[in-house]
């Protein structure tokens, strides 16, 4: 596990660091603390990370710029902030959790556990997926996404307008974030349930889901029963 803590309050950063080490134990490979925004952006660009713990108010700067960059990356982001009213916006951007200050070990552990257990985030507030396109961050509304296809370490978003966009997060991570409206119907597919119009059995006992736009997406053999029940 490679973790970055972005926090300008030294005492709080040390607290997070201490607790994180404690919680992850040997699973932790590296832990880095940075207290300014430009340094943090630079570090994210050049390192491979699994988790970023982010304070949204750094030296009087609005951390939402950093947040947009962070959520477009392959890693999960957990926001630790004094401003509870920023929680909704943070969730809309697709953070894994929002830990309000002041926090105790239990609350931090609960958040960190989500990254280990792949526990599905109770996040039905996510509204946007941030993607990197020609070096810039672009925000795609979740309602425009029909289904997502895993493509190795990254994913492909299939949009309502027929376009296809790449996202840096893995299918597993997006499944965690999008659990409220999307279902993993196949090991390579995450589909918005409301888009499925028909579930059929094709020759060779292949299960297929038909979407509103006429596309057919395979349903995993083991998942079929479950999906059908949920869809009905």
């Amino acid at each position, binding site marked *: 596990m490679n973790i970055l803590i972005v926090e300008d309050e030294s005492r709080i950063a040390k*607290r997070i660091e201490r607790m994180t080490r404690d919680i992850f134990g040997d699973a932790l490979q590296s832990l880095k603390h940075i207290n300014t925004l430009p340094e943090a952006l630079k570090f994210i660009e050049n390192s491979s990370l699994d988790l970023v713990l982010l304070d949204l108010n750094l030296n009087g700067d609005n951390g939402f710029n950093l947040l947009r960059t962070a959520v477009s990356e392959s890693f999960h982001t957990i926001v630790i902030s004094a401003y509870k009213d920023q929680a909704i916006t943070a969730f809309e951007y697709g953070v894994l959790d929002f830990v309000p200050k*002041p926090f105790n070990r239990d609350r931090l552990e609960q958040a960190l556990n989500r990254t280990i257990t792949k526990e599905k985030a109770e996040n039905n507030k996510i509204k946007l997926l941030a993607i990197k396109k020609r070096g810039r961050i672009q925000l795609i509304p979740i309602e425009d996404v029909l289904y997502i296809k895993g493509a190795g370490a990254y994913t492909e978003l299939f949009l309502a307008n027929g376009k296809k966009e790449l996202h840096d997060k893995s299918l597993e991570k997006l499944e965690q974030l999008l659990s409220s409206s999307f279902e993993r119907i196949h090991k390579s597919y995450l589909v918005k349930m409301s888009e499925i119009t028909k579930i059929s059995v094709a020759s060779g006992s292949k299960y297929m889901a038909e979407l509103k736009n006429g596309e057919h997406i395979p349903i995993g053999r083991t998942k079929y029963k479950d999906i059908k029940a949920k869809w009905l």
Partner: protein
Amino acid sequence: MNLRSLSYFLLVSTVLLVTSCSQSPVFKRHKTVFQIGDQQEWAAKDLNDQYWEKGKPIVLGGQIYWFRTPIDILKASESLHPYGIQLDVYGEYEVFWDGVLIGKNGNPGQEAVLPPEGKMWATFSIPTHLTEEGQHVLAIRSSLYYFPDHSGIWGLEMDYYDDLLNDRLIESSYMHLFAGAFLIASIYFLFLFLSDKKEYATLIFSISCFLFFTLILAEFIKAYMPIHYSMHIIRLRIIGLLMLGISFLIPFYFSMQFPFPKRKLLLTIYTGVLLFFFLSKYLFELTANNMALSMWLFSFGIVVFGVYKKMKGARLVLLTILLSVPIGFVTPFNKSLFAGFSLILLGMFYLLSLRIKEQRLAYENSLVQSTRLRLELLKKNIQPHFLMNTLTSLIDWVEESPKKGVLFIEALAKEFDLFNQIENQTLISIVQEIALCRTHLEIMEYRKEINYFWEEEGINPEEKIPPGIFHTLLENGITHSLPLEDNSITFKLIFESNNGYKCYTFLTFAAAVRQKANHKKEGTGLKYIKARLTESYHSNWDFTSEPTNTGWKNTLKIYS
């Protein structure tokens, strides 16, 4: 509401004034002829007076002279309802109508020996049998001891005797009501001025109203107070003085409301013009006329300038000034004067009400602003960034090192205590402000684990400062700077003063002070500082904030 009732009153009065002049006369007056000397026959109706003098003679030494005026009666009077004749004549005299003595006003020819008797405006009843339709003769036997050059008839009016007396009383009672309104306005605005002695416009308006009140009184006093012709000059002088005062004050008032360039010079020239008219020995009405005219022209000029510059209220005032012109043409001079003046005074009244409204709004705004600033000061300690970060650090200290945690809590308690002491004040001692800054640094040391140092130079403990100004600068300094290599940041407050101003310099010594991303947007902290300074010092302050090689520099100058 006062304004509305006044304007109704004005309307009614104007209508009355205009209608009173529009009745068709019952008589036609011919030319007056004069003869110095005294013969009782000269009273006769059918005397041949064609060789009498046509021009007004100068009658010296109180000697007797006669003058005769043929008058045509156009409509015979009704029985039981006699005609009367109202005269405005200098001197003491006897009045003959068609040879019959109908009245006596003083003792002609005996003025030098007897005390003054008789009045300037006298009304005489004419027996009904002498007021048939056709030609009649008014003959007056008079002496003119005090003003030998004021011979002849200055005013003559004929109508039903009762009407002549009543109309004058009615007219003057209306005018006195009217005057009363201005008296009340004058007193009201005087009190308003006394409660706020900086508002000279209110005082000038009050004086103008009072002068106008006395002017009306002086003009209409003749209806009920007998004045001997020798004293009449005093009344005219009073009226002249009042006119001078009003003619100066009205444009002066407008010049205050609609300021224009070279105000003093133009006002001085204008005063000169007024004084020239006042002191020149013309007829009273001409003098008054000239003064009224110059007043009108000058005011008009000022208000037009106001309209040109789009000043508030100028348009309506211009309208009232323009409206006074047609009224001046329709009505005889002494009435147009009052109608015109009152219109202009109404315009001034309107301006004053506008200003009072503006002041009230400004005052309400300042109250709101003060409350807002007070809340902002209070908010400093409960805004989430400060409070939640502090509490998180505090929990950590308590968990890891309880003794230090206690010290941290004490520092926090002290800052809250200091805030409680100052939260409702607009100026606090600089000592309190510095104490606040030092406690804040203590707290921030626990949070940031940076060594903060506070230095001061030349601080005068007697000085006062709006609360939270340096505290805000300190907060900004902490937020935006990174520590030096030895993990320290130093803040320094320097005070200097001289005759012109007091100057505080607040320096931050730090490694890298982050440049503000955009200078256009002003942080809430700076807004707070500027609003506090304006609240206490209006515009007599100057604040600059700039980066230096060693950190940041804020300079605050307060001018005395």
